């Protein structure tokens, strides 16, 4: 394998022909290239399912983790190397079902990572079961009976959890998605893009045809301004985002719902407590000199001097 600045690998992409994942992969590769990032400055962290394979198709560090756990793996990686650009690829089931707790926790922290939700309303690799974004009452061709469980609203959940960049995209509009990814990656804080995509094999309801007639860009709405430039604007902008997030049916908005540029990312909160953190994060600290611990016996005593007592007699 040779160094590939186009972010492609030689691994055969084994998604179904026509899958929305292709659009996401292409948009992501183009975004990384246009951002001018070096492959080793980037880590793509995924969960399980069709979307989980994404890292293998990208020439950058790739960590294909457990079902639902991409966010905590990525969190540890980012905490250890805050200078890395960490991008999480997960399915709707992965991030909003089994991993929903982690999804919420990430928003609370505002860690500087990007989450891409491959949202196709079904569990593809296990043959089309309903995912947490499939509305109740509908029956895709793979389901034996109509879905009994209501859908979660990814945009509303993200806003409520505290994500500071919340957007939606449509996988088949690669250029629009690519631009959103670039903004999300450059945003300082937790960013999420809910990416609507068809599952050509198992989802016969939300098809390319269905989306094409409904998707419209928020940018085209007169007066739509999701940006929080001052903390005092947070409540109002969040309320508007939540209201907009409810729009689903004849019209499906894509674009940026909420973008708070004022909230401190987790890394900076940490750096206020550990002043050396950003310059000398956990993965880059020297811990030995010539094989001996940097924290030697004398230093250990000084660090933990609160535990030390001296004999008086």
């Amino acid at each position, binding site marked *: 394998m040779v160094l590939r600045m186009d972010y492609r690998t030689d691994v055969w992409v084994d998604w179904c022909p026509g899958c929305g994942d292709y659009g996401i992969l292409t948009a992501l590769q183009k975004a990384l290239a246009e951002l001018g990032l070096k492959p080793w400055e980037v880590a793509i962290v995924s969960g399980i399912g069709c979307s989980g394979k994404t890292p293998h198709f990208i020439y950058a560090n790739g960590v294909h983790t457990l079902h639902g*756990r991409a966010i*905590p793996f990525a969190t*540890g990686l980012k905490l*250890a190397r805050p200078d890395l650009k960490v991008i999480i690829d997960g399915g709707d089931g992965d991030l909003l079902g089994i991993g929903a707790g*982690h999804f919420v926790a990430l928003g609370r922290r505002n860690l500087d990572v990007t989450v891409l939700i491959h949202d196709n309303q079904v569990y593809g690799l296990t043959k089309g079961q309903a995912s947490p974004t499939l509305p109740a009452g509908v029956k895709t061709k793979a389901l034996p009976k109509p879905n009994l469980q209501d859908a979660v609203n990814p945009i509303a959940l993200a806003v409520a959890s505290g994500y500071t960049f919340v957007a939606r995209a449509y996988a088949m509009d690669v250029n629009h998605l690519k631009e959103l990814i670039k903004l999300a990656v450059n945003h300082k804080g937790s960013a999420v893009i809910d990416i609507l995509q068809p599952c050509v094999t198992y989802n016969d309801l939300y098809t390319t045809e269905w989306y094409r007639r409904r998707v419209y860009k928020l940018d085209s709405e007169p007066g739509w301004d999701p940006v929080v430039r001052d903390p005092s604007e947070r409540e109002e902008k969040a309320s508007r985002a939540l209201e907009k997030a409810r729009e689903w049916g004849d019209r499906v908005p894509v674009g940026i719902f909420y973008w708070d540029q004022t909230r401190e990312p987790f890394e900076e909160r940490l750096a206020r407590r550990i002043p050396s953190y950003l310059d000398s994060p956990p993965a880059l600290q020297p811990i030995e000199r010539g094989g001996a611990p940097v924290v030697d016996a004398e230093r250990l005593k000084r660090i933990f001097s609160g535990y030390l007592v001296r004999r008086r007699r």
Partner: protein
Amino acid sequence: MGVVREVRFLVGGPQGSGLETAAQVLTVAYAMEGYRVYSTREYFSNIKGRHSYINVRVSHRQAWAPREEPHVIAAIDAETVLTHFREAAPGTVIVYDTAASKVGPDRVPSMEREEKARVKETLSRAGYPASVEGAVRYAEAELGARPLPLDYQALLRSLAGELGIPATRARRFLNTIPLAAIASLTGLELDALRAGFERRFRGRQGVVEGNMKLAEIVYDTVASAGLRGALKLEPPPEGPSEYFIVSGNDVVAMGKVAGGLRLQTYYPITPAADESFTLEAHENLEADGESLGGVVVFQTEDEIAAISAAIGGALAGARAATATSGPGFDLMVEALGWAGINEVPVVVTLYQRGGPSTGMPTRGSQQDLAAALFSGHGEFPRIVLSSGDHEEAFYDAIKAMNWAERYQTPVIHVLDKFLANSIVTLPPPSLEGVKIDRGLLAANPGPDYRRFDKSGGPISPRAFVGQEGVVMWYTGDEHDEYGHIDEDPVNRLRMHEARMRKLELAAEEIPEEGERAILYGDGGDFLLVGWGSVKGAALEALETLRGEGLRGAYLHLRVFEPFPSGYVSEVLSSYPPGRVIAVEASYNAMAARLVAQHTGRRIERFILKWTGRPIYVGELARAVTRIVEGGSVREVLTYGA
């Protein structure tokens, strides 16, 4: 009344009444005088109100386990007297509040009904009233105890008068009454006690003075009862000039810092969380203004996230660990397998508590060895080591991280609540000869770097995510040398074998004798086999038994994977099967089963304890005698309230 070399005291009261503070003050005061102190705490899963007690041993040499027959039972409340009077021995001083004299078990709502019934039965059978007074009289007449009744309210009123504060405000000094009574009984000088208070309440001179004033009042009262210095400690021998006063949780945190841990993740759980608190309190590694970096301590949303984030940190090259207990460890298991197949050096510090399920969350056990060794689907190498005392725990914390990186695999460091919550005086550990072994690192990896390159042996040269000029892939799927998914049967054959062979390599490199198992003493009439915090009780029980003419040895198991089969087999072979006794804090004696599995030698004598309370030296020695001399095959220990 003679001079003694050890004083054992039990101080009890409701959770939240300042017992721990009292024990800390005394521990510091005695340590500064040059004594060695051991204390262990029993408590309920409760914030305020339930019965808690601390067993303390102040001696000339370090004790590592609790021992029966306290010299003092000091009670903050009625429940302490009612719960512990049966533990009195000849000469035991019982310090209690006269105001509680008439209180019986039925007036103590926090007492569990079984305990109430037992107390009432003991007292009524012997003809005493079911009250504190009855209990004290029982202890005096039947067991030879010496009552030291004090009027706590009167003492506090005197204090209020001296300080010119309302009596209600003097109440916050209540825990100093039993504390000062113990200090006075053992002949601790007031200036030594002052040093303890000054240490504990640094910068709060008012609190120090209030406590000292009350201590003086209590000292006078104990003196007028004729008991001041009744348990006077012989002056301590020469020894180290300084000690760390540390719990098992603290000492693991210290080992981790020395060993280069820079990312600790955790989700709150008893009895592991205090380790992470200790780390967080020292997150800035500063020594005399020199910054040595920092440890990121990260509280996650659950234990799944805790281990996942630790793995993420390890992939980037940070030494990373998580600390948990049984229920949390159960949640971590899937990710442990991921670390196994991806050859990630992650350390899990596992503090065992009473299971299964929530079990007895604040009590101890050794029930999780099988979980540490066998949890998780599929085969993957892991190293499992356990520590028997604070000193072992310190060095093991470093060793765990070294082995994790050397063998690029998860390491589980098994401890227990007994060790976690016991506090000792530990001479600052030497780091002479201690090495940081980061394992095989890739030299100048380039664009064609292969994370799982097995061409040079089972251990692949490691590069870190984020390292310049190199990228790599990881996946929980079986993978090729680049880390891409690969289900080819020949690839699988090779990769799986290479991973498993790392454990064989560890077995070749880590010495069995002394490193994976330690034999204390040899020959004799019997062999005790144990692990973890059994060590302290076992070694002291051997001494006690030697005094009674019974000689034995103790085989201390330290590493369970890779198991020291050859050495253990050799040691066991020199004893008749009826003289090899497994000592474990579980029902199943899991370590004994492992011995059989690895050596073919079945252990057929057992001393077991699963009440959640620690093994006491005396009960262990008596159980050994019953097996060795009385022909018993299985002894179940029950001491401790």
